[in-house]
């Protein structure tokens, strides 16, 4: 017994330490001192604000056809600009935590990635909006070069780690799909001038979109969910075998789906979409079991948005399956495809990613601003840096905007689309206001 410590005697030993005891200090350094993830997160949020405003302007006359150059540009500002930037920033911070190893890459390479990514997205979006496809292709190539750095960093860190569950594997799988998506995008841009691919561009575009949406984003979410949800709710990851099987199902279904979309083969599309949807459903079951173990009973806005986003993704997978059931050769259901795209991108993915960001951004800011003062002076807790009212306002506006937008896109009616666009933009404004409130705490560091 330690001197005078009878009230706090060590509990009986017996429970085994987890496998990852290779990190006995429990210390995970902030990647790039926390600055690098923050740069990605801030760039992503700026892109969110711009994309939401652009979407609102574009929907004043209803939802434009999704292949309209303006919509393609908005989609690229939203996907690689907003969602990917945020996921890269969060991933660079989260990956060492999950894998229990510092990133196996020099900070200089990560900063190079940040520059390539932000400049590349800007060129890509401007090129697509203005119909300058060479410019867009160059931007895409810069983004792809950046993803190569991310993929190599992920591979090296994964190999150094001993953790091999769904959370760990999801980083590796997602990095591979991201690289494939960006390279396919560059190939599409070159094909537009050279015409070397013997398939219709629209089919290739659908395949490219699904490589990114399901390959990178859904794969990542299928893994990190089982790290983030227990961490933020004080729960335990449950059904790990199911979570892993669900992740593998997605990995198996996606290549089949992508091939089916590229060659417009209905059987392949249905098979791939079915396996992929089953994978997403499996992850949903494992998530429900994990959530049931939580000790923090009241879910805050960030976790609530994250879970709602995952549920919307499940719904979108079913909608996608319905679209896949349409026979090849029939006239495409343009309205349905637009509604499906909005449900996935503005709905499931955005809610899940922003929900995750609502937790990660205050934490990163807190670590930089107040971490060094802990134990030396009174400091606020990380969750107190944000405004609960603004977070709730964002979630309501975003949810209402999404319902209106999807209704407008599916029905072709003008006013729900217009209202949805502006509601979504108003939600983005509330989000950015809250984010600025969190970020100003960095000034407290001085």
């Amino acid at each position, binding site marked *: 017994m*330690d*001197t*005078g*410590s009878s*009230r*706090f*005697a*060590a*509990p*009986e*030993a*017996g*429970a*085994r*330490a*987890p496998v*990852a*005891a290779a*990190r*006995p*200090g*429990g*210390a*995970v*350094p902030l990647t790039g001192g926390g600055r690098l993830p923050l740069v990605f997160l801030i760039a992503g949020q700026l892109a969110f604000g711009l994309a939401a405003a652009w979407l609102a302007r574009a929907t004043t006359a209803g939802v434009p056809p999704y292949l309209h150059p303006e919509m393609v540009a908005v989609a690229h500002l939203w996907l690689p600009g907003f969602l990917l930037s945020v996921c890269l920033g969060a991933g660079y*911070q*989260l990956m060492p*935590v*999950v894998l*229990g190893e510092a990133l196996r890459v020099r900070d200089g390479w990560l900063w190079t990635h940040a520059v390539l990514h932000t400049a590349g997205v800007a060129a890509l979006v401007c090129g697509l909006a203005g119909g300058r496809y060479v410019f867009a292709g160059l931007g895409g190539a810069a983004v792809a070069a950046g993803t190569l750095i991310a993929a190599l960093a992920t591979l090296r860190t994964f190999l150094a780690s001993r953790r091999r569950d769904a959370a760990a594997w999801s980083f590796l799988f997602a990095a591979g799909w991201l690289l494939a998506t960006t390279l396919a995008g560059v190939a599409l841009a070159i094909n537009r001038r050279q015409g070397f691919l013997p398939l219709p561009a629209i089919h290739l575009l659908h395949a490219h979109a699904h490589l990114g949406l399901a390959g990178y984003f859904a794969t990542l979410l299928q893994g990190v969910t089982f*790290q983030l949800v*227990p*961490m*933020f709710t*004080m729960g335990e990851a449950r059904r790990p075998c199911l979570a892993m099987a669900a992740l593998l199902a997605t990995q198996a279904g996606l290549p089949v789906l992508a091939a089916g979309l590229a060659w417009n083969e209905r059987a392949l599309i249905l098979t791939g979409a079915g396996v992929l949807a089953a994978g997403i459903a499996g992850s949903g079951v494992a998530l429900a079991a994990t959530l049931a173990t939580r*000790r*923090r*009973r*009241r879910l805050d806005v960030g976790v609530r948005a994250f879970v709602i986003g995952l549920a919307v993704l499940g719904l979108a997978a079913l909608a996608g399956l319905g679209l896949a059931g349409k026979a090849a050769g029939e006239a495409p259901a343009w309205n349905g495809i637009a509604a499906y795209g909005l449900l996935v991108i503005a709905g499931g993915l955005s809610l899940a990613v922003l929900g995750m960001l609502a*937790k990660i951004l205050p*934490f990163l800011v*807190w*670590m930089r601003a*107040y*971490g060094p003062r*802990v*134990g*030396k002076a*009174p400091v606020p*807790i*990380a*969750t*107190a840096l944000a405004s609960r009212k603004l977070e709730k306002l964002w979630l309501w506006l975003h949810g209402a905007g999404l319902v209106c937008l999807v209704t407008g896109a599916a029905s072709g009616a003008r006013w729900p689309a217009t209202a949805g666009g502006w509601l979504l933009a108003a939600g983005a404004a509330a989000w950015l206001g809250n984010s600025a409130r969190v970020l100003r705490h960095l000034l407290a560091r001085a």
Partner: protein
Amino acid sequence: MNSPETTSLVTAVLDACGRVHDPEFGVSVRDLGLIYGVRVDEGGAVRVTMTLTSFYCPAGEVITEGVKSAVEALAGVSGAEVALVWEPLWTPERLSPVARELLGWDAARGAS
């Protein structure tokens, strides 16, 4: 045998741990049940044995450094060391009544 000074210093160390909070949950490391033991020698050197709620806690280093700083600031402490241990693993049963109330755990259990 513990001297009164040593005993009061142990109390002070535990109080200091009560002022170091988990940044996510807003609950002190003492109420979370993370402090496994406190040893104080006659010279005022303190050794705190503690754990974290999760092996993958991203704030682990900040929390342990915070405990060390809070203890070192106490009068009568000549030096502090924090030993992070993983055996036995932390379990929710170590939460104090205060922590359970803050997390809304007991209310939910009673309702279920």
